[in-house]
């Protein structure tokens, strides 16, 4: 009996330890080694699939936007061309390779669009919005949005974002930011040019029409090279020729 009693713990100890080790391990939260898990800082506002924030009108949809556009935006936040403190802080140390990987992730997401709240506006305002989107305003030298953002407003590869399905608050605040210089892109900055040519009421009109416009069945961006930009645009590497 004595022998047995003293022997048992001897060989049982390693086994017990191994079991405890296993249990301790199982007790620890298991973390998936996926990009989706790694970028919780992005998805908590923009949604796990980049669908934008549910309910809120501010955090934009990232899903399906051209990867080149998304990567450039991250870089612009890093360089301070786009000003939004939480984004600047989040991306400040990311490497170009990691930013590209994150951009590719969101560009590849295909999720349904969700209608975001739009303020109740007069029909004439929406009409003005539609006019700006589809034919522009020659008097203000404002080209139609469709000229670059695509016939179906789903964007153009590689760097023009789609405008469909974006919240009203987001579109109007971006146009405002271009006027105040807190959003900028590579010079010559054609969007800054256009935003400054618009009257303040036009911003409301165009944002409201875009936000209430139905999303087309095919939301893929137009192929690269399918547009002739009416203005000189740094991001389009001098493809444009107009004024």
């Amino acid at each position: 009996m004595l022998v047995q009693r003293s022997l048992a713990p001897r060989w049982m100890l390693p086994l017990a330890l191994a079991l405890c080790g296993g249990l301790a391990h199982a007790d620890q939260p298991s973390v998936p080694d996926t990009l989706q898990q790694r970028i919780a800082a992005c998805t908590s506002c923009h949604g796990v699939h980049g669908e934008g924030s549910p309910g809120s009108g501010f955090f934009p949809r990232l899903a399906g936007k051209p990867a080149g556009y998304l990567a450039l935006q991250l870089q612009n936040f890093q360089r301070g061309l786009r000003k939004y403190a939480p984004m600047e802080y989040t991306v400040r140390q990311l490497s170009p390779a990691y930013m590209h990987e994150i951009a590719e992730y969101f560009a590849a997401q295909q999720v349904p669009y969700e209608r975001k709240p739009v303020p109740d506006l007069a029909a004439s305002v929406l009409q003005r919005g539609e006019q700006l989107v589809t034919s522009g305003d020659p008097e203000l030298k404002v080209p139609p949005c469709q000229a670059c953002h695509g016939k179906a407003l789903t964007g153009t590869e590689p760097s023009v974002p789609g405008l469909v399905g974006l919240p009203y608050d987001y579109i109007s605040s971006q146009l405002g930011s271009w006027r105040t210089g807190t959003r900028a892109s590579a010079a010559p900055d054609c969007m800054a040019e256009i935003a400054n040519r618009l009257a303040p009421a036009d911003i409301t009109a165009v944002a409201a029409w875009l936000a209430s416009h139905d999303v087309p069945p095919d939301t893929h961006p137009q192929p690269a090279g399918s547009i002739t930009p009416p203005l000189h645009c740094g991001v389009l590497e001098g493809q444009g020729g107009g004024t």
Partner: protein
Amino acid sequence: MRHLRLLWIPAVIVVMALAARWWWMHRQQAMSAATEDPAIASMLKDPGVIAKGRYLAIAGDCVSCHTAQGGQPYAGGRLLPTPFGNIPAPNITPDAETGLGDWRFEDFWRALHTGIGRHDELLYPAFSYTSFTKVSREDAIAIFAYLQSLPPVHHLGRPLGLSFPYNIRSALTAWRAVYFKPGVYQTDPKQSASWNRGAYLVLGLGHCNECHAARGTWGGIVTQAPLSGGEIPTQEWYAPDLSTQANGGLQGWSAQDIVDVLKTGQSSKGVALGPMADVVASSTQYLRDDDLQAIADYLKSLPARPQLVAQPSALNSKSVADHGGDIYAQRCADCHGKDGEGVPGVYPPLDGNATVVEPTGINATRAVLLGGFAPVTAGNPRPYSMPPYAQQLSDADVAAVVTYIRQAWSNHAAPVLERDVIKYRHTPID
């Protein structure tokens, strides 16, 4: 009215004094435009010296201050916020007009070692000459050689953002008398070569004390307690105590933990965040292993700290912490573990984490508000990240959850108040 007429006398004296000063400065400038000492001139061209200088410039993290957001490296322009106003970091590329193109090594040495500029002006200690004075002359030559080898960038810095009386440089004479003692690092023969190298990097070139020590009323470092932790004024982060001994901020850290966090941005004890993430990303991740080991050897030798006496708080934080515990279970426990143990190599532990229990609560509060990624390094190229909760939690909820993690498990730090959260929610990020 008669006595007013007599004002021309002091006015003339002032004009004469200004003229004399102008003449004197020009004379000095003409003198310093003299050619470089031939022995130094040949070192400045030596590729080996330049390569060494590049490494040392990285160890000193010069690029971090001397580069504006989105700007050319070393071309200056970043505004360093201080409680006295913003101080722009100058262009240190060898551009003749806007950078160091006309500088001789002696000018550089005088700035680095004594904090005096090329025109005899006293430099503001936002330029950390209080630490850089410990850098050896040989290393300074190498750094200067590297800076002179950079492509010159024509970029004029922004004007000094200080207002009266801080814009009067001569006032620095008094400041220097109190806070500045020039002198190259002296080897301690009782310690190992590695320890001495570590002390040289930490106290000198790496200028760790500039953040990791408390500052007095006039912004000088309190020298009695080096590396014992300090609040970074206006940037609103707390640089923790670096002692690994009893009651130190890094209590329980091994030498390997120190090497890991400096090299990869994370260790089993914690992750670099805020300004330290920048330091890791642009400086320490590139240091050689023997230098990182040297830094660890030195930090491990810092003495134990006296036990902090807990401030009796009028606030009963029990109910706040209970509410915080609920938030923790919902939002934090999935990653940081229900006992704050973290996940090795992925999510930092919160139990016993220096950044959680530092005296002010700034770091934990801002980490909850800002979230973010661990620094991207060669050792951790695709870091995991934490959601920013500024958009999801109210000030009261942030205060509650931070108070909870500061008092849960083995942590015994002071509660954080809602008004603190309001303040840090609006702190600019740079």
